[in-house]
């Protein structure tokens, strides 16, 4: 009788150990599967953009329009890779070489607002203006110049690189004063390739469908 009970306990223990091993292996397999999926996937998604049904094709398609605007001189000229803003339709370095400065508003006697007024100055190629004219600050450069569509899409939704913007703030940013200023250029400057309304629609479509980045 005793031997039977001992054997029963041994069998139960063996079953428990086996089950634990199987479960552990299962969990490990699932984990590695997910890791592989993530690393193989070139798409990324805004973490809190989960309310609506996602459409990666529509998202990537919309981003193509967004990218065409962001890389136009009206946007890119103030998102340079260096500390000197860009100028003109060919995005050359700003004459006089004004520098970004810590807050993005220039340095010493070369602050942006010393020349750039709250509004566009009259005359061909006179300084364009806006009450908030500045570059991104030195600790959050938000570079557009030289970025591929893939790189820029990933950068735009990374709060560590986009000025700590969440989904809501990103959507609101379509109507930011400096963004809108791109469609009110001073004399002699070209408009972005699509209207602001089209841009805003594409921007929101891209974000709400998961903010997928185009393939590299």
């Amino acid at each position, binding site marked *: 009788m005793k031997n039977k009970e001992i054997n029963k306990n041994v069998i139960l223990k063996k079953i428990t150990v086996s089950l634990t091993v199987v479960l552990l292996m299962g969990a490990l397999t699932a984990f590695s599967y997910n890791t592989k999926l993530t690393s193989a996937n070139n798409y990324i998604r805004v973490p809190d953009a989960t309310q609506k049904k996602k459409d990666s094709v529509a998202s990537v398609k919309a981003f193509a329009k967004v990218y065409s605007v962001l890389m136009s001189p009206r946007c890119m000229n103030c998102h340079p890779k260096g500390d000197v803003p860009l100028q003109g339709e060919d995005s050359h370095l700003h004459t006089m070489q004004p*520098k970004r400065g810590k807050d993005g508003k220039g*340095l*010493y*006697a070369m*602050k942006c607002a*010393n020349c750039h007024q709250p509004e566009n100055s009259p*005359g061909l190629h006179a*300084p364009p203006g806006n009450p908030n004219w500045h570059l991104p600050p030195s600790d959050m450069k938000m570079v557009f110049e030289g970025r591929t569509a893939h790189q820029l899409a990933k950068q735009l939704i990374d709060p560590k690189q986009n000025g700590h913007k969440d989904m809501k703030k990103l959507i609101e940013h379509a109507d930011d004063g400096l963004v809108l200023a791109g469609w009110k250029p001073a004399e002699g400057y070209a408009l972005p390739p699509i209207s602001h309304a089209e841009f805003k629609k594409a921007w929101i479509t891209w974000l709400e469908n998961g903010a997928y980045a185009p393939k590299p």
Partner: protein
Amino acid sequence: MSVLKINGQSYTIDADENMPLLWAIRDIVGLTGTKYGCGVAQCGACVVHLDGEAVRSCVTKVSRAQGKQITTIEGLSKNNDHPVQQAWQEIDVPQCGYCHSGQIMSAAVLLRENPNPSDQDIDNAMAGNICRCGTYPRIRNAIKIAAEIQRKATKS
């Protein structure tokens, strides 16, 4: 009517609010030390201080300047003895002199914000002030001398 506070004094002027501040300063108030160079903020000859910032008065509207402290070269110091002015005189910086009120006003902002500027700092501050006589080496030297004058004045 617009009221401009220039060099500590209030001036009531009859001018369109869109008039460039430079016009008001020179043609209405009669302070002609500030010069007209290009008219499109490209040369720096017209630099004045607006609440301490080195704005280009040729593109700054009268409307922007209202309620703010405007300082022109005439008001930079009481006796033309701002450290930058002393340094300018010490090594005779100007040649034709046309751009130098703007140069001095820009240099004054640099020294206020950076009492010990490096060559790079000087470039960063002064690259927007053009001198067709090419007095740039003397401008650089004078700014360093001015920094020294300012440091001595601060110590004593």
